[in-house]
C-alpha cells in the first residue's frame, strides 16, 4: 500500500513538473519518414526560438488523431496539420486559427500510383480501370492520402464507396509506406501526397520500373500551421501576430527544402472550407 502511495505521489510530482514548463511546444502530423520529420522540425524549433524569444520544442507524435488530441488538450500550442486534420482541430478548438501554409499548399495534389505489373498507364481522367484492384490509402485522416482521394473515387463511381469499387481497401499509415507497399506489390494501387512522392523520388527510394504515377488529381488546399486561440494569454499580447510573421519570413532553404515548400504564405480558416465540405460529404465529419 505504501508503495502505491509513493508511486502516486511521484506521478503527481511528475505532472507538477510538466505544468511549470512554459515552453512553446508544437507538433506535426506524422505523414512520412520520421527521420525527415525530426530533421525538418528541429530546424523550425531553433528558428522560432530565435525569433520569438521563448523556448520552443517539437513533440513528435505517432498518429494523426494523436496530433489533433495533443493540440486540443493543450499539450502543444502550434501544429503543422494537413487540410483535414486542421479542420478537425479548429472545430474542436473554437478560437484556433490557421496562420500560414506552404505556397504549394494552396493548390495541392494527390498522385494515384500503381504497381507496374498491373499494366495501368497514366491517364488524364480518373483511372476507372483501377476498379477491382487492391487499393491502399495513407493514414485514415490524411487529406491527400484519404479524404480527397475518397472524394474523387466517389465522384468517379457515383453511389459507391471505395470498399465497393476496389477488391480491398487498406490504410498504410503514411505516404512513404504507401509508396513502399505499392512498389512491392502488396497493394496494386495507392493514393499518395505528391510532395512526399517527389521527395522520395529525389532520395532514390522509388524504383521507376516497379511503381508509377497513373493519375494526378485536381488541386485542393492542404497543409497549414494552426495555432491555439489562447497563446496570447500565455505568451503575451501580440504573440500570434509575431508567430505568423516569423513563419512567413522564413527564407532559409535549409528550413524550407526538407518541407518540399518554396515559402510560407498567410492563410485563414476560410481557405479550408472546401476540405470541410468534402469531409462532411464523405461522412468523416459531422
Amino acid at each position, binding site marked *: 500500500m505504501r*508503495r502505491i502511495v509513493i508511486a502516486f505521489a511521484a*506521478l503527481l510530482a511528475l505532472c507538477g513538473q510538466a505544468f511549470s514548463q512554459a515552453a512553446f511546444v508544437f507538433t506535426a502530423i506524422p505523414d512520412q519518414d520520421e527521420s525527415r520529420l525530426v530533421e525538418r522540425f528541429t530546424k523550425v524549433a531553433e528558428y522560432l526560438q530565435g525569433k520569438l524569444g521563448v523556448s520552443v520544442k517539437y513533440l513528435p507524435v505517432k498518429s494523426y488523431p494523436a496530433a489533433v488530441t495533443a493540440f486540443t488538450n493543450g499539450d502543444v500550442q502550434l501544429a503543422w496539420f494537413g487540410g483535414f486534420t486542421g479542420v478537425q482541430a479548429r472545430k474542436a478548438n473554437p478560437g484556433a486559427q490557421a496562420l500560414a501554409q506552404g505556397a504549394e499548399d494552396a493548390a495541392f495534389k494527390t498522385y494515384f500510383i500503381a504497381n507496374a505489373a498491373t499494366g495501368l498507364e497514366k491517364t488524364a481522367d480518373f483511372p476507372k480501370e483501377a476498379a477491382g484492384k487492391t487499393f491502399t490509402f495513407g493514414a485514415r485522416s490524411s487529406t491527400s492520402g484519404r479524404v480527397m482521394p475518397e472524394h474523387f473515387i466517389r465522384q468517379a463511381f457515383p453511389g459507391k464507396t471505395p470498399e465497393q469499387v476496389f477488391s*480491398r481497401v487498406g490504410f498504410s499509415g503514411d505516404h512513404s509506406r504507401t509508396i513502399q507497399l505499392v512498389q512491392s*506489390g502488396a497493394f496494386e494501387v495507392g493514393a499518395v501526397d505528391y510532395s512526399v512522392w517527389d521527395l522520395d523520388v529525389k532520395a532514390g527510394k522509388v*524504383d521507376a520500373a516497379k511503381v508509377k504515377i497513373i493519375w494526378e488529381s485536381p488541386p485542393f488546399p492542404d497543409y497549414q500551421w494552426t495555432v491555439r486561440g489562447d497563446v496570447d494569454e500565455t505568451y503575451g499580447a501580440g504573440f500570434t501576430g509575431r508567430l505568423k510573421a516569423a513563419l512567413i519570413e522564413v527564407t532559409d532553404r535549409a528550413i524550407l527544402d526538407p518541407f518540399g515548400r518554396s515559402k510560407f504564405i498567410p492563410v485563414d480558416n476560410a481557405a479550408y472550407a472546401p476540405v470541410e465540405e468534402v469531409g462532411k460529404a464523405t461522412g468523416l465529419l459531422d
Partner: protein
Amino acid sequence: MSALAAILPRGYLSATRAFVLLAAVSLLFADLAVTTMDPFGELRRMFAGLAAPDFAAIAGWSVVSTLAFAVVGVTLGAGAGFLLAIVFARSRTVRIACALVRSVHELFWALLLMQVFGLSAITGVLAIALPYAGICAKVYSEMIEEADLSALVALPKATSTVSAFFYARLPDLAVRMKTYTLYRLECAMRSTLVLGFIGLPTMGFYLESAFRQGRYAEAGALLLVFYVLIGSRRLWARARTLPLLFAAAILALPSMGGSGDVSSNLLRFGRAIMPAPLRNGDWLSLETWSRFGAWLRSIVTEQILPGALETLVLSQLALVATGAGALALLPLVSRRFTGRLGQPLGRILLVVVRSTPEYVLAYVLLQLFGPSMLPAIIALSIHNAGIIGYLMGRHVDGLAYRPDAPRGVNLYAYEVVPRAYGQFLAYLLYRWEIILRESAIFGILGVATLGFHVDAAISELRLDVAVVLILATGCMAIAVDALSRALRKSLRIERLPVRLSTASIDRA
C-alpha cells in the same frame, strides 16, 4: 485422428471436433487471397537488415523507459488487484468491473487515457495498470480460493480476520503470488511495445518506426535486445530487487507532454464520449431519443455485427492454427524429444517466437502474402503457439514415464499427446479470450475486425462511437471467457494450471 479417437476421452474429442468444425465454417467466410506480386525485394532487404543488427542505432533511453513503464504499471496493477481480490469473490460488481477493465486492449486504454492525461507518463502507466489490476484481481482471488485451509482451521476461535489473513492465509499464498506477479512483468514488457503506437517513447515506438521506414538493421537490434530482456527476466526481476526496480523506474519514467489541464480535459472527454444525439439534443424530447436509437442502430448494424463476425472468424481460425502449431512445437522444448542439448535451443526459439510482437510478424507476412486475413491468422498463431508450446513442453517433462516408454514418433503419438491432451485444451481455451483481444490490432491489413472500426472512430474523433465499439469488444471477450470456462468445467480440466507462472511453480 482415428488413433487418437481410440485413446482420448470422448469429451476431449468432441470439443476438438467442434473447434475444428467451427474453424472449417469460418474458412468459408475468411478472406485468404494471396495477392503479392514482388515480395522478395523488400523481404531480402528485411532479412539482410535483421541479420546484421545495428546496435548503435538503438535509443538507449527507450530500453529504460520500456522497463520503467512495465515495472510501475505492474506494481500499481498488482497492488490494486490484490486489494480487489479480497472482495472479488463476494462482490458481483467488482467481478464485472474487473472483467470489463481487462477485456479492453492496452492500446485502446492508451488511446482513451491520452484524451485526458495527454501524451504523458501517467497515460502509459495507467494503460498497463488498469487492465492488469483486473487480471490480477481475478487470478489472486482464484489463488486465495484454491489455497490450503489447514492452517486457518488450527487457529484459536478469537483470532481476528486480519491476523487470520496474515498469519494463516498469506504465507501459503505468498510464493504463488510472487511468481505470478513477476511473470506479469514479462507480459507488461510486451504491452509497453504497444504504447509506442501512440507516441510514448518505449522500444515499441522505435521498433514500429524502424519497421515502417525500412530501417531493418535497427529493427533487428531492437528485437534482439528485447529477446534478451525477456529471456533474462528471472535473473533481474526478483522479489528482493522489486522495490529497488520500482524506485528506479519512477525516476526513469519519461517526463513529457501532459501540460494540458487534466480537469478541463476530463470535462471535455466526458462530453465527447456522450452519444452525439444526446450531447446536442433536449433529453426530455422524444425526438432526441429516437435519433439516439437510430445512431445506435447504425453502429450495431454497420460496425458491431460485421466487425464481430470478422473478429470471430479470425480468432476461430487462429485458435485452431495455434493448437496445431503448439502440438508441432511441443517436441522442440521437451527434454524427452530433444535431449539435454537440444532443449535450450528449443527454449531460445520459443522465447523469440513468443516475444516477437504480432504486428511485426503481420508486417513481414503482409509483404509475403499481400493484404488479407492470412497474415493476421498466421501472426496470431505463431505468437500464441509459441506460448502454449513452451508451457506444454514444461508440462510434458514433468510427467512420469515408464522405464520402457516408447521413443520418438510412437512416444509422441501414443503417450505424450494423449496424456497431455487435457492440459493442452485447458491452455488453448484460456488463450481463446486473449486471441480475441489481440485480433483487435490488425486494422492495417484491411481486415475489418472490431479494432479496425475503433481505429476509424478515433481517427474521425468520434469518441462516443469508439466507446460503444470498445464496450462491444469487451462484452464479446467476456462472453468468450464465460464460454471457455463452462467448457473447461464440463471437460473437468478447470483445475489444471493454465498460466505460465503456475506451470513453472511445479518445476521451479
